[in-house]
């Protein structure tokens, strides 16, 4: 045994007594310079862009990617030269006289070159990282659209292990060089072989079409360390497969080298051992991924979206009972990066189709799809017309409903209940069992069935608008199945009551003040130069006394009707600075103040088919089973009084939805409740001026959660492509790191 150590020590003496090795190691510092230089070029481009454009940059990561192949090449060259230079000078004969066992001579070099590769690899990895991060400075933490940051500093999870693995792989690189050197024997031949392995093949992989190119690239030597250590690497391999490959590279090379020696010495045992090890290691990446075994059959259906169907019990209390079929949609992962799982997008409404969202807003998910399949569905309560709509209820049933008026006394309240019940029963008759199971908890159980069918252990969520209600129900019912949950512009799950209504009134009042300010500042506003608040309050007051007719339509708007019709436009001005809906609203108000509500009627009718806002039964089916309620006549009186106290411009507006549930025939099955404080991962809520505070309520009890406040109008920030918000959300979905408390996003400054 001591003899083996003597030979290893002799190889160390050989290595350190050659000055050329020192020069070569010094040359490896080129890798550090390269990392710094490329990063500096990125920074120069980055600084010249607007903050919004910067979001589209590709991450520099830990700063190793450009320098690493160079570092590995130098270390591999050291390994190769340790053999090939002996052949070139003839010293191999002297070495073999000193150590006649050829195999021992080769493998005594292994610990020496591996040790040097390890030490130099670590030094270079940390050097490249430090250089790149120094060049990036504070920009390193800037978030990008794909959820990464421009740089990844040591404080980020996975970076330190990544550097350690990348450095340690220097040992593997040196051993690959040693094996190639022993196999090829000539220095030039060995260096060319290494250039092919470390530069030519990876370069060739990059020009292959997607996703084949990135997949092939995943198998390249320099791309393996990241796939071993990084939680969301660029490559497609799992950490174990990548580790096996990283070991396989030197094993194959050394087997080749040992084989060349064995064939000369006419001994075949090392050859057989190496071949066996190579085959075993090669099998590991080939093993089928155990990630998911889906029971679903997907087929192309709309554009990029793939579709599948799943049968679920109509009544989850009777799982063996009657089944209904729900339709699923999927934007598959791009296959260029390691797949981390499924992001489930829960659509709003209630009644929106998530498949439609994937089709219309697929671009919002483009970056997320590097690591995730994005799956959604047309929930059981979908009301959007189209192929996804369940045929149990007629379109008329889903898309129409009564006009709601504020009842002024107990008798009017009872009459409202009668009207509501009669309208509901018309629809319920078609399928009472289905009608009684349209609550968001049933929707959440459907999502759980989808999860099981997908074969995913956990799901990540993007829930938009009313989709946050089934999301909250899912978090409550299946907390252990939640990997991450991002809720955007939705219902906070606070029981309908004074607190909830205060928040909403405060929100719409602030937004109305913004509308008024905009009109003062905007010459094209129809009310420009007038006191908008005064005009509005006079209009509402006079309409409450005497409704304002829609000329030629036989309908008239009460003050309440005006509020209900105006509120969506106040909340959503449309793209700024054009603000088309604010222009439209100002014109409608001006016209109504002059005695004609036609301006309101025309845009309301365009959206709803009715000249006055209608309370859709399809929406109420879910609202009412989710426990939306004014709390009886007394509760209604209290809430109405509250509105009149706190909301000079929109008093009563927040009663419109809950009043539709007075007298509803189906049972409340999913009363409002925020997710529990235990058993859930940190969650993230995002919202605009008008929906942030309500949404924030949903995550307030879940430890570690935070919110993103968008300083602007809007609703459904992720789906509508708000890039700053998407960057934060993607970062959370990718890394499970919620944004810092107090995070805000601002609308991008308009281009000059």
């Amino acid at each position, binding site marked *: 045994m001591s003899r083996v150590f*003597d030979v290893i020590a*002799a190889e160390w003496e050989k290595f350190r007594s050659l*000055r050329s090795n020192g020069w070569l190691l010094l040359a490896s510092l080129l890798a550090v310079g390269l990392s710094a230089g490329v990063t500096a070029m990125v920074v120069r481009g980055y600084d010249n862009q607007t903050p919004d454009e910067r979001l589209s940059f590709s991450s520099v990561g830990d700063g190793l990617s450009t320098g690493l192949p160079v570092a590995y090449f130098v270390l591999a060259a050291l390994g190769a030269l340790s053999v090939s230079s002996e052949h070139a000078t003839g010293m191999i004969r*002297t070495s073999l006289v*000193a150590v006649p066992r050829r195999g021992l001579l080769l493998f005594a070099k292994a610990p020496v070159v591996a040790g040097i590769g390890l030490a130099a690899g670590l030094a270079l990895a940390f050097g490249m990282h430090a250089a790149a991060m120094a060049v990036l400075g504070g920009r390193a933490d800037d978030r990008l659209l794909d959820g990464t940051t421009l740089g990844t500093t040591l404080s980020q999870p996975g970076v330190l292990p990544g550097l350690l693995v990348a450095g340690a792989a220097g040992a593997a690189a040196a051993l690959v060089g040693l094996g190639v050197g022993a196999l090829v024997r000539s220095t030039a031949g060995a260096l060319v072989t290494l250039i092919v392995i470390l530069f030519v093949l990876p370069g060739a992989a990059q020009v292959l079409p997607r996703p084949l190119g990135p997949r092939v690239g995943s198998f390249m030597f320099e791309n393996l360390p990241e796939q071993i250590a990084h939680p969301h690497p660029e490559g497609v391999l799992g950490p174990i497969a990548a580790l096996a490959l990283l070991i396989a590279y030197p094993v194959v090379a050394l087997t080749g080298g040992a084989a060349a020696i064995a064939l000369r010495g006419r001994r075949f045992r090392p050859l057989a051992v190496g071949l066996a090890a190579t085959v075993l290691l090669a099998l590991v990446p080939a093993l089928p991924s155990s990630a998911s075994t889906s029971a679903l059959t997907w087929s192309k259906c709309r554009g990029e979206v793939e579709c599948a169907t799943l049968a679920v019990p109509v009544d989850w209390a009777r799982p063996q009972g009657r089944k209904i079929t729900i339709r699923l949609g999927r934007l598959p992962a791009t296959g260029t990066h390691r797949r981390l799982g499924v992001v489930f997008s829960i659509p709003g409404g209630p009644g929106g189709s998530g498949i439609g969202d994937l089709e219309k807003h697929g671009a919002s998910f483009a970056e997320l799809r590097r690591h995730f399949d994005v799956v959604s569905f047309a929930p059981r309560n979908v009301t959007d017309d189209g192929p996804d709509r369940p045929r149990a209820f007629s379109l008329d049933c889903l898309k129409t409903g009564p006009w709601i008026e504020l009842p002024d006394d107990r008798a009017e309240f009872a009459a409202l209940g009668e009207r509501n019940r009669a309208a509901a029963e018309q629809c319920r008759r078609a399928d009472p069992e289905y009608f009684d199971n349209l609550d968001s908890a049933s929707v959440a159980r459907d999502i759980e069935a989808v999860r099981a069918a997908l074969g995913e252990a956990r799901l990540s969520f993007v829930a938009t608008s009313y989709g946050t209600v089934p999301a909250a129900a899912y978090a409550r019912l299946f907390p252990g199945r939640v990997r991450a949950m991002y809720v955007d512009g939705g219902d906070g799950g606070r029981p309908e009551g004074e607190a909830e209504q205060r928040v909403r009134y405060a929100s719409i009042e602030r937004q109305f003040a913004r509308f008024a300010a905009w009109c003062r500042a905007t010459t094209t506003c129809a009310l420009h130069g007038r006191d908008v608040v005064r005009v509005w309050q006079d209009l509402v007051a006079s309409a409450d006394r005497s409704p304002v007719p829609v000329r030629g339509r036989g309908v008239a708007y009460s003050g309440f009707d005006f509020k209900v019709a105006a509120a969506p436009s106040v909340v959503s001005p449309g793209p700024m600075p054009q603000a088309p809906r604010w222009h439209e609203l100002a014109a409608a108000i001006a016209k109504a103040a002059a005695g004609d509500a036609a301006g309101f009627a025309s845009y309301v009718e365009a959206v709803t088919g009715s000249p006055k806002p209608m309370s859709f039964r399809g929406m109420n089916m879910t609202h009412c089973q989710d426990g939306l309620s004014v709390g009886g006549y007394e509760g209604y009186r209290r809430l109405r009084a509250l509105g009149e106290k706190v909301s000079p411009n929109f008093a009563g507006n927040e009663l419109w939805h809950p009043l539709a549930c007075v007298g509803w025939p189906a049972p409340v099955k999913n009363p409002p409740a925020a997710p529990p404080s235990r058993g859930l991962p940190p969650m993230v809520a995002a919202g605009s001026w008008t929906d942030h505070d309500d949404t924030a309520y949903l995550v307030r009890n879940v430890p570690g959660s935070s919110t993103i406040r968008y300083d602007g109008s809007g609703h459904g920030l992720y789906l509508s492509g708000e890039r700053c918000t998407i960057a934060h959300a993607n970062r959370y979905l990718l890394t499970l790191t919620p944004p810092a408390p107090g995070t805000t996003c601002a609308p991008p400054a308009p281009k000059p």
Partner: protein
Amino acid sequence: MIEVIGLTMRYGEARAVDDLSFTVRPGLVTGFLGPNGAGKSTTMRAVLGLEAPDAGEALVDGVPYARLDRPMRRLGALLDAGDVHGGRTAEAHLRWLARSNGISALRVAEVLDRVGLTPAAQRRIAGFSLGMRQRLGIAAALLGDPPVLMFDEPVNGLDPEGVRWIRELMRSLAAEGRTVLVSSHLMAEMALTADHVVVIGRGRLIADTSMAGLVAGFRSDVLVRAADPARLAAALRAHGATVTPVQEDDAAPGPGTAGPAAPGDGSGTARPAAPATPYGSDGGAALAVRDMDARRIGEVALAAGVALRELRPRAVSLEEAFMELTGESVEFGAAGSAA
């Protein structure tokens, strides 16, 4: 002790070494002789395990070299002084060699001193002359203080002073009781150094004998010129001498017929070369006389009354003996072969 037993090495169809057997014993300098290409270096590489034999084996103290534990302590070898990396210093080169065989680093300075390279110890080998490289190679061979030493053409590139130094080194190593095998293609060099010679040609053993035995195998004669060669020849023959008429232009003595026998009989013999001297038809003026020394020839001539014109004892040179021995086996002779 080095034993070569039935060693056969082929390169394709050609046999570089063909069923070669010999033993190198301790306490002697054994010369390993043969013309260039005879298979000396190939045999030495086989002894060191650098090449695998096709048949037979080569043993060092009864064991193949490759199986020796720390082999440089058992056998020191200088094959090619150029088998070094020019980027290292002499000392660094010896240091890794010492380390590889568990030899104390103190030996490095000792052997550098012994070969006279101490002043150049810290210089890079790339700047060494061939002679300095030979000394470095010898230093490497001596590093493990081995009982067996093997040198392939060690005097190549050495100046006369260096050559003498090598000679003395070989002799002193043998005097220390070591086994010393030295190859050369120069018989004259070996004559001054070797106690024993192994001669090979075309990979086959030609002679394995002591230096004295080799010389004895090629006896001397006496060249005689006389006024009446025929009468003198008769008189000499009557006194038991062997007399051969010699043509005037043939100055070389013929090799003896005694001694050398067929190779492979293991009795330490050399193969005879056939007498090539044609018998002069005119009786000639000169006689080559054997089995009788000059003094006795003079006495016989006086008794026979023949006047002598010349009486010259002739000794065969080792070089000539070597040429005779290996004449047939020269692979790349200067003269054109049967073309």
